[in-house]
């Protein structure tokens, strides 16, 4: 069986200007997209988002949850089961609920007006926009706070919670959580077992299920206000869709920080750059100086175009995408080297002075292999994309794009650059 008949001759080099222009335009569009939109959207791994600890009924599974959350309009949720029976899930979505500056100011002014005798020394919204911390210099009526805030346009989250058995409810809304000191001492007899009056005080405070809760020592007059953010929207949406017997309640809704810090992100980028540099060195050493830039430009082209497609399609960049990007780079590189190798061989064999002709013949000779490999890979990735769900679907989608771009670039970008460099800098005419 043969896909490409031997002796095929397509003049790739003749049309190289067209492809150069097409690629140039595409890369430019990618860059522009990245500038116009707030860069490629980084996923929850990089930026943080809202985490919902959800209590569900028996028999609920992650596939149903994932589908329902997607239908509510939140892409790529992380859904993780907690515990063995899976009656609890951690749901992480990228979005959080920013409260606009004007709403914040309005609420602050309203509070000041409602409480003229008390100084409001702290008014701080959590990064996720779902918790407001207030600090006063004297005692304030909690109901007055909630009434004032609601009137000024903030939506407060009212929790309908019956008192649960305490041991199960360690992580709860008010944050009045405590691992019993005895437990701690038993677990680590060597550890610090200090007795502090402050601790004793904390223990005394019982759970607060009001939207406005006091925090810390009483004389500090600090209150936490729980706001209705995107997390509550998700929970209510799910309840409407699947019923309250399936979706029981949210144990906790809170903003979480990124898993991949700035440092890690930078080290990833740095490692990519180093890798590119070393690859260039190797190619320059094994092949010829004029080959190296072509391979690297093709790689950069691949990465930029893939990111551009991400931005255009509003796909979140997550850990999986990074892995897929790396795979694309490896794949495209492999492709490029195979073509280069044939060029090198033919150049010696053919004694043909004009590089463009050699390149053309080499691409034609390797075309069968290039298409075969790309097709098999593409089919495998396509199958995964069709069947899989969640992160793996995104992963295979990235690979699909990458296979196409990688194959294209090794034929239409890497090799023409070699020819161009040769004409521009190495030509002896």
């Amino acid at each position, binding site marked *: 069986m043969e896909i490409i008949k*031997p002796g095929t001759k397509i003049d790739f080099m003749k049309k190289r200007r067209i492809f150069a222009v097409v690629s140039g335009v595409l890369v430019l569009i990618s860059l522009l997209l990245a500038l116009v939109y707030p860069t490629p959207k980084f996923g929850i791994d990089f930026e943080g988002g809202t985490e919902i600890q959800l209590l569900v009924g028996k028999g609920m599974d992650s596939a149903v949850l*994932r589908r329902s959350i997607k239908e509510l309009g939140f892409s790529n949720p992380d859904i993780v089961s907690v515990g063995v029976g899976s009656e609890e899930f951690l749901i992480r979505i990228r979005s959080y609920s920013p409260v606009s500056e004007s709403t914040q100011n309005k609420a602050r002014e309203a509070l000041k007006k409602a409480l003229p005798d008390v100084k409001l020394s702290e008014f701080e919204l959590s990064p996720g926009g779902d918790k407001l911390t207030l600090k006063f210099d004297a005692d304030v009526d909690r109901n007055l706070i909630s009434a004032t805030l609601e009137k000024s346009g903030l939506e407060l989250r009212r929790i309908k919670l019956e008192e649960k058995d305490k041991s199960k409810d360690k992580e709860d809304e008010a944050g009045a959580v405590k691992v019993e000191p005895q437990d701690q001492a038993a677990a680590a007899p060597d550890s610090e077992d200090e007795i502090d009056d402050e601790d004793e005080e904390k223990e005394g405070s019982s759970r607060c299920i009001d939207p406005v809760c006091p925090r810390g020592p009483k004389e500090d007059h600090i209150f936490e206000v729980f706001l209705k953010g995107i997390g509550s929207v998700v929970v209510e949406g799910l309840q409407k869709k699947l019923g309250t017997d399936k979706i029981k309640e949210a144990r906790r809704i809170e903003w979480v920080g990124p898993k991949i810090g700035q440092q890690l992100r930078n080290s990833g980028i740095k490692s990519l750059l180093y890798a590119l540099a070393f690859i260039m060195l190797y190619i320059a050493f094994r092949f010829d100086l004029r080959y190296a830039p072509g391979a690297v430009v093709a790689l950069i082209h691949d990465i930029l175009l893939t990111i551009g497609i991400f931005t255009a399609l509003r796909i979140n960049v997550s850990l999986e995408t990074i892995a897929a990007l790396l795979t694309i780079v490896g794949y495209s590189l492999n492709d490029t080297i195979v073509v280069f190798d044939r060029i090198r061989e033919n150049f010696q064999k053919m004694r043909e002075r004009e590089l463009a002709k050699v390149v053309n013949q080499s691409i034609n000779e390797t075309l069968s292999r290039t298409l075969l490999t790309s097709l098999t890979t593409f*089919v495998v990735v396509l199958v995964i994309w069709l069947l899989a769900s969640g992160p793996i679907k995104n992963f295979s989608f990235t690979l699909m794009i990458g296979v196409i771009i990688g194959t294209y670039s090794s034929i239409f970008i890497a090799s023409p650059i070699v020819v161009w460099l040769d004409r521009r800098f190495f030509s002896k005419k």
Partner: protein
Amino acid sequence: MEKKWFWKAGFTLLLLLLGLFFSISSLVPVPDEKGKSDPLPSWMRDMVNGINLGLDLQGGLRLVYEVEVDEAVADKRDRMATGFVSELKRRDIENASWKPVGNDTFDLTAANAKDADAVSDVLNDYRRVLVKTGGSVGKTIRLKMVDEEKTFIRDQSVRQAQETISNRIDELGLANTTVSRRDIDIIVEVPGVEEKQTARIKRIISQTARLEFKIVEDEISGDFFRKLSTKLPEDKSITLESEAIRGPEGPVRSYFLKAMNTEERSGRQVLKMFLKKNAEIPSDISIGYQELRDLDSQGNPTTEVSWRTFYLQRQAGVTGEYIDNAYVTNDQTTGKPYVAISFNRQGAGIFEDLTGANVARRMAIQLDDKVNSAPVIQEKIGGGSARITLGGYKSYDSMLIEARDLVVVLRAGALPAPIRPVTESVIGPLLGADSIRMGKIAMAIGSILVILFMIVYYRVAGISADIALVLNIVLITGILALLGATLTLPGIAGIILTVGMAVDANVIIYERVREELRAGKAPRSAIDAGFGRAFWTIFDAQITTFIAGVVLMQYGTGAIKGFAVTLLVGIVTSMFTAIFVSRLLLEFVTRRGKAETLSI
């Protein structure tokens, strides 16, 4: 058949068996229930580390810690107050002192009312962070940290804690562990739930690891402790003891309190409560506690544990911040492991000055509120190195583990404030059980398609390529198991890439062989020429990717590293299977060089 062929075939078979051996031991799970017996012998388990599945594929433990931000605030208050007092000292006000009130406030007392000018002068320097508040009486003024500063310290301490914990996890070389933040909580997610492993991780995460070198005020300890002699409890649970210390100006008698552990409380707790109730510790002094074990007549430690006090300077001479490196070494004479630390240049200077100024006095090495040891400074110590001995009553192995863990935390730095475990829960795979299930099915179908394709397109040669492919996967699994690697989704991506490259290598070779056949060569020589020519193509293509993999492994972290490891392993095995093994099989098909045709 040539003799060489059999040698090669034997070698391949041996590798296959080894690969299978290592793969099996990691593919057969250890039974969950205790009663069930392990289908594999225990020596096999011990020998092979096995492949661990990462957080994304298998789930693991989710540990939530709360950073005790108020401790960080109190700590900063202490530093501000001591700074304030020493600033006053520079202005010739000798008798200023301070006393903590709550965690963000302190009372500053200057001896004379006339010093008020100087105090307000210094306060002016601190105006951004400290504010005068009610409760100032006579010579005492009450200073409180401003709210912005407190908010800043709280936020910063959580951020630093997250960073430090990440560093520690990096030092441990744990693959696929995530550390994230939620308000004042730190969430650590560790793959797998193996108890022994997680216990160690938990211990390392939660250790504050604040290392301080403090001079012992033996000379004036008597003034403090002897006053307490009348208040000691009648049941002798606390005793006042003394010891002779060399001292710079001749021998001095140092006093300390000692208490035994009781059923409910440790000796330290007993001492702390006693001091809290009965004594006022001067503001420039802190009390250190050391654990003591009594020895029986044979010199073995008994179970009786007691604690003693040290009368220390409050301000640490040198701290762990200045550590440049830490490592485990063995003591030449006792053979026991200890942790050697070396200070950076700045720390070495401070350490030299500190030891030089305090020859013949004692210096306590305090790790997290526990005095590790308090040796007498024999002479000025230059060069910036010190040693930390370990609780000498344990077995060699447990001391070694303790030493290694200490090295990890010392290298990664101290936590800015203590952290407290809040919850611990077992979580499912991050990718979601549903998507993993479908992912497996999809990958199986994909693989079958590739295998079928190779057979349809290359016939017999395709079958040999498929056999090589299966061997490749066995070898990758075996090597990963041998390395005890953690497999994550990015890791699987690396495997897919290398398997793809192996298929590609076979495609390159076979296309070459076809070219040679078209040129009229006999099957056997077409194979030789095809493999020979294709070898360098494949070599260059794979080596370039290998270089990229090495770089990613060196500079990358977390997910990137996982990808790089499987990529590197996969490249080596796929080169071997695609070039060596599939050639072996094709040579078998065309054996004796008499075959007329080659099915390719």
